[in-house]
Protein backbone atom coordinates (compact mmCIF):
# COMPACT_ATOMS: atom_id res chain seq x y z
CA UNK A 1 0.00 0.00 0.00
CA UNK A 2 1.22 3.51 -0.82
CA UNK A 3 1.77 6.20 1.74
CA UNK A 4 -1.48 7.69 3.09
CA UNK A 5 0.39 10.73 4.41
CA UNK A 6 1.99 11.45 1.06
CA UNK A 7 -1.37 10.96 -0.67
CA UNK A 8 -3.00 13.51 1.65
CA UNK A 9 -0.16 16.04 1.38
CA UNK A 10 -1.36 17.46 -1.93
CA UNK A 11 -4.24 19.99 -2.05
CA UNK A 12 -5.56 18.73 -5.39
CA UNK A 13 -5.74 15.21 -4.03
CA UNK A 14 -7.57 16.47 -0.95
CA UNK A 15 -10.05 18.27 -3.23
CA UNK A 16 -10.61 15.01 -5.12
CA UNK A 17 -11.44 13.28 -1.82
CA UNK A 18 -13.84 16.14 -0.92
CA UNK A 19 -15.68 15.71 -4.20
CA UNK A 20 -15.85 11.92 -3.89
CA UNK A 21 -17.20 12.31 -0.39
CA UNK A 22 -20.02 14.43 -1.81
CA UNK A 23 -20.76 11.79 -4.43
CA UNK A 24 -19.18 8.39 -4.84
CA UNK A 25 -18.84 6.68 -8.18
CA UNK A 26 -17.42 9.40 -10.40
CA UNK A 27 -15.84 8.99 -13.80
CA UNK A 28 -12.52 10.67 -14.54
CA UNK A 29 -14.48 13.25 -16.54
CA UNK A 30 -16.69 14.15 -13.58
CA UNK A 31 -13.70 14.43 -11.21
CA UNK A 32 -11.93 16.76 -13.68
CA UNK A 33 -15.05 18.88 -14.24
CA UNK A 34 -15.62 19.29 -10.50
CA UNK A 35 -12.00 20.28 -9.88
CA UNK A 36 -12.18 22.96 -12.56
CA UNK A 37 -15.65 24.34 -11.87
CA UNK A 38 -15.73 24.14 -8.08
CA UNK A 39 -12.08 24.50 -7.05
CA UNK A 40 -10.61 26.50 -9.91
CA UNK A 41 -7.98 23.78 -10.32
CA UNK A 42 -6.81 23.56 -13.89
CA UNK A 43 -4.86 20.31 -13.68
CA UNK A 44 -4.74 18.40 -16.96
CA UNK A 45 -6.77 15.23 -17.28
CA UNK A 46 -3.52 13.30 -17.25
CA UNK A 47 -2.43 14.97 -14.01
CA UNK A 48 -5.79 14.21 -12.38
CA UNK A 49 -5.46 10.61 -13.52
CA UNK A 50 -2.04 10.44 -11.85
CA UNK A 51 -3.45 11.95 -8.64
CA UNK A 52 -6.16 9.27 -8.67
CA UNK A 53 -3.45 6.61 -9.08
CA UNK A 54 -1.64 7.92 -5.98
CA UNK A 55 -4.91 7.93 -4.00
CA UNK A 56 -5.69 4.42 -5.20
CA UNK A 57 -2.20 3.17 -4.22
CA UNK A 58 -2.82 4.59 -0.74
CA UNK A 59 -6.15 2.78 -0.57
CA UNK A 60 -8.13 6.03 -0.34
CA UNK A 61 -9.80 5.59 -3.73
CA UNK A 62 -11.09 2.40 -5.23
CA UNK A 63 -11.90 1.98 -8.89
CA UNK A 64 -14.58 -0.23 -10.27
CA UNK A 65 -15.40 -1.15 -13.83
CA UNK A 66 -19.06 -1.34 -14.64
CA UNK A 67 -19.53 -2.43 -18.20
CA UNK A 68 -17.60 0.01 -20.33
CA UNK A 69 -17.32 2.69 -17.65
CA UNK A 70 -14.79 3.14 -14.88
CA UNK A 71 -15.93 4.74 -11.61
CA UNK A 72 -13.97 6.01 -8.62
CA UNK A 73 -15.14 5.54 -5.03
CA UNK A 74 -13.86 7.03 -1.77
CA UNK A 75 -12.54 4.63 0.87
CA UNK A 76 -11.68 6.37 4.13
CA UNK A 77 -10.64 3.22 5.99
CA UNK A 78 -6.87 3.89 5.59
CA UNK A 79 -7.43 7.06 7.67
CA UNK A 80 -7.92 4.83 10.70
CA UNK A 81 -4.14 4.32 10.76
CA UNK A 82 -3.83 8.00 11.70
CA UNK A 83 -6.18 7.89 14.69
CA UNK A 84 -4.80 4.52 15.74
CA UNK A 85 -1.36 6.09 15.94
CA UNK A 86 -2.44 9.43 17.46
CA UNK A 87 -5.64 8.78 19.30
CA UNK A 88 -8.59 11.16 19.33
CA UNK A 89 -9.69 12.72 22.62
CA UNK A 90 -12.06 10.32 24.34
CA UNK A 91 -14.75 12.83 25.31
Amino acid at each position, binding site marked *: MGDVFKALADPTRRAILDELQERNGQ*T*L*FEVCTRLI*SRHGLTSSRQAVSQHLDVLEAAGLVRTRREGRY*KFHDLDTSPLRAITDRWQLPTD
Partner: protein
Amino acid sequence: MRINLASIHVDDQQKALRFYTEVLGFRKKTDIPMGEHSWLTVVSPEEPEGVELVLEPSDHPAVRPYKEALVADGIPFTSFAVADVQAEFDRLTKLGVTFTQEPASMGLVTTAVLDDTCGNLIQLAAMNDAVA
Protein backbone atom coordinates in the same frame (compact mmCIF):
# COMPACT_ATOMS: atom_id res chain seq x y z
CA MET B 1 -20.05 30.07 -44.27
CA ARG B 2 -22.19 28.53 -41.55
CA ILE B 3 -22.33 25.35 -39.50
CA ASN B 4 -25.36 23.28 -40.44
CA LEU B 5 -24.31 19.78 -39.33
CA ALA B 6 -22.77 18.05 -36.38
CA SER B 7 -22.05 14.35 -36.52
CA ILE B 8 -21.75 11.49 -34.09
CA HIS B 9 -20.54 7.95 -34.80
CA VAL B 10 -23.16 5.38 -33.85
CA ASP B 11 -22.70 1.61 -33.67
CA ASP B 12 -26.06 0.91 -35.35
CA GLN B 13 -27.94 3.56 -37.33
CA GLN B 14 -31.45 2.15 -36.84
CA LYS B 15 -30.93 1.62 -33.13
CA ALA B 16 -29.53 5.15 -32.92
CA LEU B 17 -32.51 6.58 -34.80
CA ARG B 18 -34.86 4.96 -32.29
CA PHE B 19 -32.87 6.25 -29.31
CA TYR B 20 -32.42 9.79 -30.61
CA THR B 21 -36.10 10.12 -31.64
CA GLU B 22 -38.18 7.93 -29.34
CA VAL B 23 -36.10 8.41 -26.19
CA LEU B 24 -34.35 11.78 -26.49
CA GLY B 25 -37.20 13.30 -28.51
CA PHE B 26 -35.48 14.55 -31.68
CA ARG B 27 -37.12 14.23 -35.10
CA LYS B 28 -35.82 12.47 -38.18
CA LYS B 29 -34.90 15.04 -40.80
CA THR B 30 -33.14 13.16 -43.60
CA ASP B 31 -32.81 9.46 -44.37
CA ILE B 32 -31.18 8.78 -47.71
CA PRO B 33 -30.00 5.22 -48.38
CA MET B 34 -26.32 5.15 -49.35
CA GLY B 35 -25.41 1.52 -49.94
CA GLU B 36 -24.93 -0.32 -46.68
CA HIS B 37 -25.70 2.77 -44.59
CA SER B 38 -27.82 5.91 -44.84
CA TRP B 39 -27.31 9.62 -44.72
CA LEU B 40 -29.34 9.93 -41.56
CA THR B 41 -29.94 13.12 -39.62
CA VAL B 42 -32.13 14.26 -36.75
CA VAL B 43 -33.11 17.73 -35.54
CA SER B 44 -34.57 19.16 -32.38
CA PRO B 45 -38.34 19.84 -32.58
CA GLU B 46 -37.50 23.12 -30.84
CA GLU B 47 -35.41 24.08 -33.90
CA PRO B 48 -36.61 22.11 -36.92
CA GLU B 49 -34.51 24.26 -39.27
CA GLY B 50 -31.54 24.29 -36.92
CA VAL B 51 -28.34 22.27 -36.85
CA GLU B 52 -28.82 18.65 -37.92
CA LEU B 53 -27.13 15.84 -36.06
CA VAL B 54 -25.75 13.24 -38.48
CA LEU B 55 -25.98 9.70 -37.11
CA GLU B 56 -22.91 8.40 -38.82
CA PRO B 57 -21.88 4.73 -38.97
CA SER B 58 -18.83 3.85 -36.85
CA ASP B 59 -17.43 1.17 -39.12
CA HIS B 60 -14.02 2.74 -39.66
CA PRO B 61 -11.54 0.71 -37.55
CA ALA B 62 -10.20 3.85 -35.87
CA VAL B 63 -13.59 4.84 -34.49
CA ARG B 64 -14.25 2.03 -32.03
CA PRO B 65 -11.07 2.32 -29.91
CA TYR B 66 -11.51 6.10 -29.87
CA LYS B 67 -15.09 5.85 -28.64
CA GLU B 68 -14.26 3.16 -26.10
CA ALA B 69 -11.44 5.23 -24.60
CA LEU B 70 -13.74 8.25 -24.21
CA VAL B 71 -16.50 6.17 -22.61
CA ALA B 72 -14.11 4.47 -20.16
CA ASP B 73 -13.08 7.88 -18.81
CA GLY B 74 -16.67 9.15 -18.82
CA ILE B 75 -16.01 11.80 -21.46
CA PRO B 76 -19.10 12.91 -23.40
CA PHE B 77 -18.71 13.13 -27.17
CA THR B 78 -21.01 16.14 -27.34
CA SER B 79 -23.49 18.13 -25.29
CA PHE B 80 -27.16 19.05 -25.75
CA ALA B 81 -28.84 22.07 -24.19
CA VAL B 82 -31.88 21.43 -22.01
CA ALA B 83 -34.05 23.71 -19.89
CA ASP B 84 -33.85 21.59 -16.75
CA VAL B 85 -31.20 18.89 -16.32
CA GLN B 86 -32.86 17.30 -13.29
CA ALA B 87 -36.23 17.05 -15.10
CA GLU B 88 -34.57 15.41 -18.12
CA PHE B 89 -32.65 13.08 -15.83
CA ASP B 90 -35.91 12.03 -14.15
CA ARG B 91 -37.73 11.59 -17.45
CA LEU B 92 -34.94 9.64 -19.16
CA THR B 93 -34.15 7.45 -16.15
CA LYS B 94 -37.78 6.30 -16.18
CA LEU B 95 -37.30 5.36 -19.83
CA GLY B 96 -34.36 3.15 -18.85
CA VAL B 97 -31.52 5.46 -19.87
CA THR B 98 -28.21 4.93 -18.06
CA PHE B 99 -26.40 7.98 -16.69
CA THR B 100 -22.68 7.90 -15.90
CA GLN B 101 -23.02 11.26 -14.15
CA GLU B 102 -26.11 12.32 -12.26
CA PRO B 103 -27.05 16.00 -12.37
CA ALA B 104 -24.42 18.16 -10.69
CA SER B 105 -23.94 21.88 -10.48
CA MET B 106 -20.62 22.79 -12.10
CA GLY B 107 -20.26 26.50 -11.54
CA LEU B 108 -22.18 28.27 -14.29
CA VAL B 109 -23.91 25.16 -15.56
CA THR B 110 -25.64 22.05 -14.33
CA THR B 111 -24.68 18.94 -16.24
CA ALA B 112 -25.41 15.23 -16.41
CA VAL B 113 -23.98 12.54 -18.70
CA LEU B 114 -25.93 9.72 -20.33
CA ASP B 115 -25.17 6.68 -22.47
CA ASP B 116 -26.74 6.83 -25.96
CA THR B 117 -26.65 2.98 -26.25
CA CYS B 118 -24.71 3.40 -29.51
CA GLY B 119 -21.24 3.74 -28.05
CA ASN B 120 -21.26 7.37 -26.91
CA LEU B 121 -21.76 9.43 -23.81
CA ILE B 122 -23.79 12.63 -24.17
CA GLN B 123 -23.77 15.56 -21.79
CA LEU B 124 -26.96 17.45 -20.97
CA ALA B 125 -26.35 21.01 -19.85
CA ALA B 126 -28.38 23.97 -18.62
CA MET B 127 -27.13 27.35 -17.52
CA ASN B 128 -27.71 27.93 -13.81
CA ASP B 129 -29.96 30.87 -12.99
CA ALA B 130 -27.92 33.92 -12.14
CA VAL B 131 -28.22 34.73 -8.47
CA ALA B 132 -29.61 38.24 -8.13
